[in-house]
Structure formats: C-alpha cells, structure tokens
C-alpha cells in the first residue's frame, strides 16, 4: 500500500548549501543543524562555510493536534472510558457485549461534545488562521464520529438476525440531519401549501430516502392538493407499507411476502398511470418499487453514496443482512460512478461495510496523524473479540500485538507532554508486553523542576515497583540539592532512597565542612536522624559525633566522655577525623572531675600510638600524651582506693 511521505523544508540557506544532520532532542522533538562531514584526515582548518554566515540549530516538534486545549478534554475524558473498559474486562462481566456497546456510545458522545466545543470556539474566534485550524479539527472529528458510528453498528452492536437496515438509516439521518430539521421547521408552521417553499420537494425526497415515511406523510398532508385523489392514493400506499416490528412481530419470510405484495400493488398502480398527473409523486412511487430509471434520476440528489445506498436498500432489500452490505455498497458506488473519486472517508466506510476490519484499521491509521482514533477503536474491537477472527485470515497477524502497538504508541506520545504524562502512564500500564519497560525508560526522563513533581514521579515509580527509577530520581534530586549548597536536603533525598554510598559521601562532606569551618551545619537535621541513620556507617558516626558535641556543650561531660570512648572503640571513625577526636579528648582528660577510667585511658593511648604519624596530630601529640598519662595516674589511684 502506498503511503505518502512528507518532506519538510527547513527555511535556512546554510542548511540548503551544506546539508543537514539530525539528532533526537526529546520524545516529540528532533534537532537539526547545518552539517557537512569533515574527513578527519583532512587538514584541520576552517571549512569553507566558516564565515559570517550564522549557523542555527533548529528544534522541530510535531504539532500534536491532541494537545490543543479543547482536544485535551477529549484525551482526558476518553482516558476514563478506556480505563473503564480495562477494568470491565478484568471483572469478567457476564453482559460484556452490552456493556461494551454502551461504552462505544460513550466514546461517541465524548467526540460529539468535543465537536460542539470546537464549533463554539470557531464561532467565537475572530482570527482567520485560528478559524481555519478549528475548521480542520471539526472536519477530522466529524469524520471520526461517522466512521465510529458505522463500526459500532456493524461490529459492536448485536442485532438479532443481523438485520442492519434500521441502524443504517439512523446512521445516515444522523449525519444528514437537514431533511429532518427542515421538515420539522416547516411542519411547525402548521400551514397548508408548504410546497411553495423552495426546499419542500427536496425535503420530502430526502426524508423518503432516509426511510422517514411518517415524516413524508406529514409533509404531503400539508400540500395544498393533499385532498385530491392522487395524494390520497399516495397516502394510502405509504400508510400500508409493511414494517419490521422487531423480533416479536412477523417473521422474515412473512415480511418478505408482505413486501412483495405491496410492491406489486404499487407497481400496478404506476402502470395504470394513476400518478402521471403528479410528477413528484410518480417519481416517489417509482423509487419505492425500485425502478432503475427512477433511481438513476435521483442520483445527483444524493450527497454521498451511502445515503443513496441506505435509501435504495430500504426500498429494495429491506431485510438486508449486515454481511451482505459490502456487495450492495460496491454496486451503489459503481452506479454513482464514484470508483475513481473515492475519498479516504469513503474508502474506510466501504471497507467497514465489507467487514474488512483489517483494512478499516489500516486506513484509519493513515488518515489521522494522531493515534487517538485508531488506538481506542482497535482496543474496543479487540475486546469485542472482533480481531481474533483476523488471525486466521491474515498471515503473521496477532490481534494482541496490533492492539498493543497502537496503545504503546499513543501512550508514548502522551508521555512527552508536560501535563498528560500521567495519562500516558495509564495507557502503557495496559500494554502487557512492553508497557512496563517503556515506562522504565521514560518515567525518569520527566523533567522535575520542583520537589513536588519529583515526589509525584517517585510515587508513580513505587506503585509500579520500579525501584531503579526511584533510586535514580532520588539520586538526581540529591545531586541537585548539593549543587545548590543544600547538604541537608541532599541527605534527606539520600535517606529516602536508602542510598548507602551517597549518604556516606554526604556525611563526609558534613565532616569536612566541620573541619574547615569549625561548625557543624544543618544541626536540625542531625538532631533527628532516626532509624534512617543505619543506612551508612559514616552517617552513624556523624550522628554520634553530633551527639557528643551537644553533650559537651550542655556540660554533660561525663556522658560526653563515655560517648567518646565508645566512638574510639568502634570501627566507624573516618581516617581523616581521628586526630580531631583525639584532640577533642584533651580537655576532657584535663577536666577537674575524673571522667575516664583507666581502661578508657588505655583505649585513648592505644589509639594515640596507632595514629601518631598523622601530621595534623604532630603539634598536639605531646600535650595529648601528657594529658593521657596524667589522667591515667589519677584513674589508677582512684580505682586502687575503691578496691581498698
């Protein structure tokens, strides 16, 4: 199948002369710049483009129709319906087909609401390019609704006996409502002699072709000659027309017989030239009996072939079955000599009538740039079990894969939108094969310019058990906080994701800052580390050291000393921090009260000897030794006394 490939032109002279290169910028954007391949073996000198010519980088983005504010409502509302389908399926509802039919009608009413909004906006708008844009959208969605409606009739609705005529007529009159409208307004005037209106006969004929017999009869009654014999005869005939009363009424065979009788009756009346005085009535009667010539006469009056088709079927094949539509449709098209003038919409409708679902989907996919229609319709048809039939017919076809490919595409497109990414996620959630991986790839790429947004992304990742993504987002936020000089906040993020190495790094930063400035920052954070501390030894040390500080500053020297000893005995002191601890033990050793036992002092001395080569300790080493020794002697003396 041929598909047109569009070539987009970048309006830039340098790009034209040099050629262009492209790189992906984001999901929905591509970056293009003027480019000429340089051979690395050439001399490295300015290219012949180096000059005053300004080089540019172009960021190209696809204008996604769906992101227009009015269409965004459609996106959100239809998302709700989509999710309703998925939960309906999983709940194994007994009345599935009926529910899906109701859902199809919901989709269509959403489209119609959207059309109304577009129409309102179009009327209000004063800018010509905006009006044009809106008109385009209106045309697009109008055709979408038309196709959807037909698909609903043929593929989703269940009709007893597959009799499709009444729905078909309803479909046509829905899309060509002017006859009904005109009739209604004329009848409302409640005057006789309506035929003086210029649109009278067109309306009568139009209503006839849509099978609106009651309307035709009402209009004819308002004709000034309605009392004369010909008109009364016509009224009689129309009144006597056999109708299908639903499954409870007469059987198909009976109906067919009645119909043949009635038609023959009309034919004989025509042959008897009973209508020859009234040309219009005569035409109508000849149409009713299916006279070829009559139908050719009115060909031009039909705007589209399917309006012609519906009318013709009504009078010649009233019990037509859905699967017979295709052949009749083709015949109608040929009659109207439309074979070479088929527009895209016509092709889709024909394919639908031929029950070629695959073709319908293919056509829809190419007709519309945005995947909204094809993905939602395919999903619905899939759940109606309409696609699995195709698996037998079309080689290499997997209904599940087809549906998933559309939903995946659609969801991915939405993921690229600043606001609709959450909607995109819900679609990707229902792609059983690749959905989660795509989410894993795209979720961390969402630009998070506030912590609130980062928390939202983390929550979505947690809900889907994507721990890698959680870790990654927390790390990026932590790094960002660090860049901004917010170490405390960085630590919060590190703790949120239980990131051991990063926490250790930050704890080191705190300690190094303390060494440089003499102050511990973010004390409010250190006050309440809680169980989160356990993530990293370095952090435990920081917490304990801060505690030591607080005890010291509040005068709790005994407690401080005990803590100091336990720290020295533990294995969690960073190498660069030993000398600080040892130096800070000096005032405690020299304190008036005896704070350290002999064992404690041995611990200190042992550490001191181990670390004596540390350069920062050099000056204080002697003082430290002296203090320790003095304390030791005091301690030993004291302990000896106790023993005694």
């Amino acid at each position, binding site marked *: 199948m041929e598909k047109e490939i569009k070539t987009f032109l970048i309006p830039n002279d340098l790009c034209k002369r040099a050629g262009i290169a492209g790189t992906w910028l984001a999901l929905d954007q591509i970056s293009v710049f003027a480019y000429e391949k340089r051979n690395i073996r050439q001399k490295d000198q300015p290219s012949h483009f180096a000059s005053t010519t300004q080089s540019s980088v172009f960021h190209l983005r696809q204008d996604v129709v769906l992101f227009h504010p009015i269409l965004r409502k459609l996106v*959100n509302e239809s998302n709700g319906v989509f*999710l309703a389908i998925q939960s309906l399926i999983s709940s194994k509802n007994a009345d599935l087909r009926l529910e899906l039919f109701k859902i199809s009608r919901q989709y269509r009413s959403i489209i119609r609401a959207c059309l109304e909004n577009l129409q309102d906006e179009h009327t209000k708008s004063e800018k010509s390019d905006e009006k044009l844009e809106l008109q385009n959208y209106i045309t697009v969605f109008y055709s979408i609704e038309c196709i959807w409606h037909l698909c609903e009739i043929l593929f989703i609705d269940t009709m007893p006996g597959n009799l499709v005529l009444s729905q078909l007529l309803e479909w046509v009159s829905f899309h060509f409502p002017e006859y009904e409208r005109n009739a209604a307004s004329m009848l409302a005037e409640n005057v006789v002699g309506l035929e003086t209106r210029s649109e009278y006969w067109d309306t009568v004929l139009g209503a006839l072709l849509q099978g609106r017999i009651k309307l035709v009869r009402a209009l004819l009654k308002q004709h000034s000659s309605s009392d004369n014999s010909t008109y009364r005869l016509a009224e009689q005939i129309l009144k006597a027309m056999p109708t299908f009363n639903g499954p409870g009424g007469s059987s198909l065979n009976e109906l067919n017989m009645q119909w043949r009788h009635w038609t023959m009756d009309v034919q004989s009346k025509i042959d008897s030239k009973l209508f020859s005085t009234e040309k219009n009535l005569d035409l109508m009667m000849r149409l009713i009996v299916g006279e070829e010539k009559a139908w050719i006469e009115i060909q031009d009056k039909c705007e589209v072939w399917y309006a012609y088709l519906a009318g013709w079927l009504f009078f010649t094949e009233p019990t037509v079955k859905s699967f017979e539509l295709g052949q009749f449709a083709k015949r109608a098209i040929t009659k109207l000599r439309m074979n070479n003038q088929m527009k895209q919409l016509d092709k889709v409708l024909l394919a639908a009538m031929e029950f070629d679902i695959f073709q319908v989907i293919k056509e829809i996919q190419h007709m519309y740039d945005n995947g909204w229609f094809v993905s939602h319709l395919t999903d619905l048809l899939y759940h109606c079990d309409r696609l699995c039939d195709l698996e037998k017919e079309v080689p290499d076809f997997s209904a599940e894969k087809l549906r998933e490919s559309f939903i995946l595409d659609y969801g991915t497109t939405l993921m690229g939108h600043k606001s609709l990414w959450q909607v995109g996620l819900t679609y990707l959630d229902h792609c059983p094969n690749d959905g989660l991986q795509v989410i894993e790839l795209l979720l961390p790429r969402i630009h998070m310019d*506030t*912590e609130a947004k980062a928390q939202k992304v983390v929550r979505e990742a947690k809900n889907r058990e994507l721990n890698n993504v959680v870790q990654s987002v927390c790390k990026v936020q932590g790094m960002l906080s660090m860049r901004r000089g917010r170490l405390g906040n960085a630590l919060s993020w590190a703790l949120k994701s239980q990131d051991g190495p990063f926490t250790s790094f930050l704890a080191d930063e705190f300690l190094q800052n303390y060494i440089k400035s003499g102050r511990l920052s973010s004390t*409010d954070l250190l006050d309440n580390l809680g169980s989160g501390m356990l993530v990293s030894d370095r952090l435990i040390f920081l917490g304990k050291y801060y505690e030591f500080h607080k005890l010291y500053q509040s005068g709790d020297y005994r407690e401080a000393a005990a803590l100091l000893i336990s720290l020295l005995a533990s294995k969690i002191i960073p190498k660069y921090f030993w000398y600080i601890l040892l130096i800070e033990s000096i005032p405690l050793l020299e304190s008036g009260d005896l704070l350290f036992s002999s064992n404690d002092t041995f611990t200190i001395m042992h550490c001191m000897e181990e670390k004596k080569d540390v350069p920062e300790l050099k000056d204080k080493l002697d003082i430290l030794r002296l203090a320790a020794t003095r304390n030791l002697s005091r301690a030993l003396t004291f302990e000896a006394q106790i023993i005694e």
Partner: protein
Amino acid sequence: MSHSLHGTFVSEKINKIRWRPDSYNSHFFVTGSIDNVENNIKLWDFCENVEEDDIYPFLVYNLPYCGDITEIKFINSDFFASSSSSGSAYLTRVIPSYSESTSLKNEIEWKNIHQFKNGDASPCTSVTVYDNDIVTVGEDGSINLLNGKSSKILRKIDDADSCSIQCVIFLKHNEILTSNLRGQMKIWDLRVQDSNRPTSTFMISGEQVTPTCLTYHPTQRHLVITGDDLGALTTWDLRQNTYPINVLNGHEGAISEVQFNPEYPDQLFSCSSAGEIWHWTTKGEAVPSLLTPNVETNVWLAPDNVKNKLDVFTLMPTLGKPINSLDLNRNRVICGCDNEAIYLINGVNL
C-alpha cells in the same frame, strides 16, 4: 448519603482550588494550574439549573501565571495570596464589576523571594495568611514574612531549615508551624527578632515520612492534623507536642489536602494522590457535659479509639489520578485533579 456530583474537564491540571469567601452566597471559586507551558489562575462561577438538577461551572476570568501555582489562600473576599514554583508570591485582587465580568489583577508581586544560593530559582512551596499578614516558605529553606499592604519583605528568616520547607500554617497571629521534607515540624515565634531558630521542633514520625499537608481545627487551633506521604493522618495537640494523639491510616496514596469544615468543626475532609476524597464524621453528637467540664469533648483530641468514633464516607468513586486539592463551602465541596478536571459535590450530608 445522596449528594450530586458534577465534573468538568478544564484542559489543565488543577493544583489548588479555593472558594471565594463571600457572605452573599455567591458561587465564585478560583483554580490554580500546574504542568502547563503557561499556567493560569482562573476565576469561575457556576450556574445552577434546578429543574435538571444540573450544575455547571463557567469561566469568568483567566489570569496567566508564571510558574506552577503551589498554594492559594484567600485573605478576604477581595484579596488572595498565591505562591509560585518560580519562587515568587503574589497578592491578587478580585475586582467585581457590574458592566463587565469580574476580573482578577495582581496587586503586588514579590518577585523571586525564594532563591538558592547558587542563583537557581527556588520554588515557593506554600503560603499562609492571617489577616493581612502573609508568610511564604520554599525549597531554599527560608521563610518570608510579608504583608498585604506593602510590597517589601518585612522579614526574611534565612536558612530556617536545612531541608526544603513544604508546608506552613499560622497557629496564632505570631506563631507559625512549618514542616519539611524529612518530616520535621517546627514552631516559630515571629515576635523573636534576629533569630533563625524555631521555638520547638518535633518529628512527625520515627521513620522518614514526609508530611504533605497541614491544617488546624477551626475552633481549637492547638489541634493540628498532618497528612503524610504514606496516607496517614496524624493528630497533634500542640500544647504538648512530643507524641501525636492519633494516627489514622487509611488512604492509599499521599494525602494532598486535609480540611475541617469551618461551620461543622468536627467534620474533616481529605483527598489523596490515589484519587480518593473522603469525608470523616463523628458518629452521633458529642454532648458537652456540665458535670465533667474538663473531659475532652472534641473527638479529634480524644486519645485512642478514635477510629471507633468516626465514620468515613467516600464522596466520589476513586479517580485513577491524584486529587490535589479540595475546598469546602457549607455543604458543597469542590476538588481539583490531575485528570485535568474539577468536580463539584453538592449537598454533602453534614
């Protein structure tokens, strides 16, 4: 529990929704959006069609806004304060008009009052008001004291917190409560000048849980409720704030907003990121006893067993997406959601 529900799609995610306080029973409300290329504060009104039992809101005025709207608080029926993710705060005026429709206008812009030291803009995460006094907090960990009558910053508490401050409310005219990313709550006495230390600090929980919203009881302002990241509501009596009084788990998602009904102070409303919106009400009535005047009659302050004293109703079937904000006006509730729609719930049984 028969109430009517009406939803309208508005083509933008609504982060905050607020009724305009008005004694004339008008229907104005205001929404603030997020995640748009251009965000907006919109003023809405709604039409009631009593025969069809239908209510639909319509847009009255649109005010373009720089940054995400992170909070909106009305000072009175004519003015409201808002905070932006761009680091600025605004005082906006509602200008009624008889000839044209009501409009909104920014009276004061406090531009970039929150900033990181490296020059990056810092989101202003919340704003709270008391009379004409306005307080803003941000991810830069600082607190700004502003006033609706002046465009200057009255006082800035720099480095008030080593973590991002996410929520703030006034407890008394001179006292505010803030919460940060780590779950630390701090009470600040604004009369104390030249200090960036809070008067008291406590943790919302022993684990690292982030509080996502704060509110106080309408008549007893020492009763504060925090909603957090894991869906729990924690009740505090700030007269003794070491341990919470109650913790109510329930919500699936993070609680985005919690509010007491100002006219029926024992009824609480909460909404969450899982798309739930709930109405908490006490079973039966609390009868104040004259014999035992010291017994706590407020159910929310009663320790233990509070779960047995409360009924919870869902106001709407669970939406698949976060409900970010709710607001109450007598028996009407409005909420703004991430599915780009607002919902009006009329006739809530109180």
